[in-house]
């Protein structure tokens, strides 16, 4: 077992365990902070999938942006939310959670069944890319390639997403302004 594999299983374990904690805990603040750990572990998994630029983007945007935003929204939405959480039942398995658990569990079984059936390592295009040396190797630096592709091949989605980001910015500012008349 190589070092990369050990690291992979460690990161995967941290990601899955912290995700389960996020889903199971009653304390909302704790679940948000645990979500930090999940995102960091996922960034580690991206690094092990040889996508270092995506991992850095994940840390900057998700951890630096989205989670801080969620924390702000949580703090701003006052004491009542905290009280609601306090009065929830403390049992992990309660009868009204059962349908959700059943749904998620059955869906997991379906997904796992499909994953093991499809045998992703032996897909045609994956094998072809290994033969034609079209796969990313641990010593190849991809950031330069990403930059060039972003400005040539993927210019249209890049522009579209910049317009969409602008729209979302204006929309969020409009929605959250104070004292809207009519």
């Amino acid at each position, binding site marked *: 077992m190589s070092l990369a594999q050990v690291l992979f299983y460690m990161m995967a374990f941290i990601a899955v365990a912290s995700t389960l904690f996020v889903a199971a805990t009653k304390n909302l603040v704790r*679940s948000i902070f645990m979500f930090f750990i999940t995102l960091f572990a996922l960034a580690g998994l991206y690094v092990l999938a040889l996508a270092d630029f995506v991992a850095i983007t994940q840390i900057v*945007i998700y951890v630096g942006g989205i989670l801080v935003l969620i924390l702000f929204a949580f703090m701003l939405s006052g004491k009542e939310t905290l009280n*609601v959480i306090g009065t929830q039942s403390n049992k992990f398995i309660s009868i009204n959670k059962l349908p959700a658990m059943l749904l998620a569990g059955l869906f997991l079984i379906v997904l796992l069944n499909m994953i093991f059936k499809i045998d992703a390592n032996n897909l045609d295009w994956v094998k072809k890319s290994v033969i034609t040396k079209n796969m990313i190797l641990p010593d*190849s630096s991809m950031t330069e390639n990403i930059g060039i592709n972003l400005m040539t091949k993927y210019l249209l989605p890049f522009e579209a997403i910049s317009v969409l980001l602008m729209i*979302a910015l204006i929309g969020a500012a409009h929605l959250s302004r104070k004292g809207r008349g009519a």
Partner: protein
Amino acid sequence: MISLTDFLVVSAVLFCVGLYMIVSKQNAIQILIGIELMLNAAILNLVAFGKYDRFNNGGQMFALFAIVLAAATTAVALAIILNVYKQYKTIDPGKIDKLGD
């Protein structure tokens, strides 16, 4: 070498936990976290398959686009949640059942 199946299994688990959170939680912010988890599972798949596309970088590129889209959705969703809280004094989606006043 880490096989693709490992990545797929991890992302399947994350996806299902996200699904569970969306269906069962009584707090809009936790539902939002569930959506983020599902998005992250999808991004993990994109990145894992993107390893086999060195010249075009399709997987990594669209993973970046998905991250940016998630940021945009979260900003708008949180603005909506704050407005709903102002109106109803609760963010339990089960208790929000009126369109107007």
